[in-house]
């Protein structure tokens, strides 16, 4: 298990370095930073001065290590647009996005795992069809459209829930559903097919031959085997939800990272965009790493490879 963890950790590090390198390059290829820092109408001498002042004349690789070193200490530079430390901006916005992502994934799991299980236990019955239609609907509806439907129905008509802002948990209900529903079909289908496959396997026949009762066969022996491929997908989905909540955040006027990314892109605030890319990819890598660990915990065969 230790060797496995270290291997995965090493792999995660390598990916991390690659991603940060790309993220660093992103800023550099987008234009000469000395020109934009020196400001409009600056003379060539002034630009050269800035270049030397900020060290932009030195080899790129050294600049990368300096930048990475600062980033590791939580210094992501300043936003030239707002004159604010990027790290601080990120910290302020992160909470909303993380809450939204985690609750959306939880919603998706709570909906899709039981539905997938029911559909697998009773394939080709009405429950299977209900599950399938829920899944097809989730796949077919764009999340922004579903979000708007929710707003019109629960926000405007019934006035049950607030339609914008992030002050209380009630503000998160609709965004969570809109975002989480989108991830439901993939997880549900995976649970369903996994359960069907495991239920037909030899070791379930053994479990039945042992006289084990249904709940134990289902939850202990079937679900655990069937959930292993779901873990990796769920991690990827959470990554998507953190990065892909831009649309949902705009619809519900949530002040999260997605919103910040949207605004920053539109005003070419590159250090902020770069920091968000870095943050999201780091989260992604950490999630994948955690998923690997969880899978190793669930499946001893993975542990010993």
């Amino acid at each position: 298990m230790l060797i496995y963890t270290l291997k995965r950790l090493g792999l995660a590090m390598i990916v991390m370095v690659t991603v940060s390198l790309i993220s660093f390059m992103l800023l550099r290829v987008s234009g000469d930073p000395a020109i934009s820092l020196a400001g409009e109408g600056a003379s060539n001498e002034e630009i050269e001065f800035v270049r030397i002042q900020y060290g932009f004349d030195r080899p790129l690789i050294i600049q990368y290590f300096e930048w990475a070193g600062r980033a590791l200490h939580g210094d992501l530079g300043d936003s030239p647009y707002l004159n604010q430390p990027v790290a601080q901006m990120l910290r302020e916005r992160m909470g909303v996005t993380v809450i939204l992502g985690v609750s959306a994934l939880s919603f998706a799991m709570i909906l899709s795992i039981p539905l997938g299980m029911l559909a697998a236990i009773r394939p080709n019955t009405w429950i299977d069809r209900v599950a399938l239609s829920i899944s097809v609907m989730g796949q077919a509806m764009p999340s922004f459209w579903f979000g708007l439907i929710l707003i019109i129905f629960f926000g405007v008509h019934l006035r049950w829930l607030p339609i914008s802002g992030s002050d209380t948990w009630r503000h998160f209900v609709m965004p969570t559903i809109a975002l989480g529903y989108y991830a439901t079909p993939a997880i549900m289908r995976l649970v369903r097919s996994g359960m069907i496959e495991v239920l037909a396997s030899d070791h379930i026949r053994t479990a039945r031959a042992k006289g084990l009762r249904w709940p134990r066969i289902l939850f202990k022996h079937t679900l655990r085997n069937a959930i292993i491929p779901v873990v990796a997908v769920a991690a990827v989905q959470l990554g998507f939800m953190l990065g892909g909540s831009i649309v949902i955040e705009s619809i519900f006027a949530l002040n999260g990272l997605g919103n910040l990314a949207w605004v920053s892109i539109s005003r070419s605030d590159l250090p902020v965009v770069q920091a968000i890319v870095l943050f999201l990819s780091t989260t992604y890598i950490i999630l994948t790493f955690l998923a690997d660990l969880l899978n190793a915990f669930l499946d001893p065969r993975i542990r010993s490879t």
Partner: protein
Amino acid sequence: MSALLEVKHLNVDLNLPAGTLHAVRDVSFSVEKGKTLSLVGESGCGKSMIALAIMGLLPPSGICSAEKIAFEGLDLQKMSEKKMSTFRGARMAMIFQEPMTSLDPCYTIGNQLVEALTEHKKVSAREARDRAVFLLEKVGITGSASRLKQYPHQLSGGLRQRIMIAMGLMCGPSLIIADEPTTALDVTIQAQIMGLLASIQQEFNMGMILITHDLGVVSRVADDVVIMYCGQVVETGNIKEIFNNPIHPYTRGLMECIPVPGKTKPGEKLGSIPGIVPTPIGDLWGCSFRSRCSLATQECAARGLELIKISDKRSFRCINPPVTIADA
């Protein structure tokens, strides 16, 4: 004395897209307490279906009907699924052909052994574990305390099959069904496992149904033999009768596949029955073996080929037996 298990006129049909497959046709036999009955026949003869029908573990496409499947005097067919599951593992256990895939890869051996007992009996974790250790030693696994912590993938096929046997014994069943328990194993391991099963069956005084395609295995362990072909019984008898006086051409064919110590020279080709077992789909008549039988005549295709009984336990299904029955 009533038998431990009495199966009367058992039929198993599988509803397949291609039609109804008559996997088991009108099979009757009984297993005495503490005795071994062997079901013998090539692959595809319906042996596993008989075992699964008794255990109530037929696949969803399988439909079982029988005049009687009486176990310890109770008709299993009339039993609810819930009641049935209190018998499975507790009173009757089954060992499968595929030791590599028959254990749950996610749990330790200890966990899977212990739950076989705790599901049926109110015992402490300690007692269950002690029972597991005791049985692992019984099935010839040394260092059993540390084995309990191992996972299936860390063990060889032979060890896994030993563990399956130990698992079957956890509750002390009165009937054990072993479905080709050695087919998937190396030849050297096969004899060990078979010997183990025989000695365990004696020691725990269980009734056993031993399913095999190898008549040679049977001679050492079985009391009674049922020869199956294409879902039907073609010959039954006790072990001596079957070996001394095989009647059915199929039994004789199986016999020729067995190497005889001292007689079969190394490298000498053993007999084999040409052709394969037909798939029993659709309308069936006559002797199923006639397509492969060197003695077949036109009469063999006649309808209504009954099992001919010559004594209480001895019967055969052939209208043209190669021996005169008086000899048998």
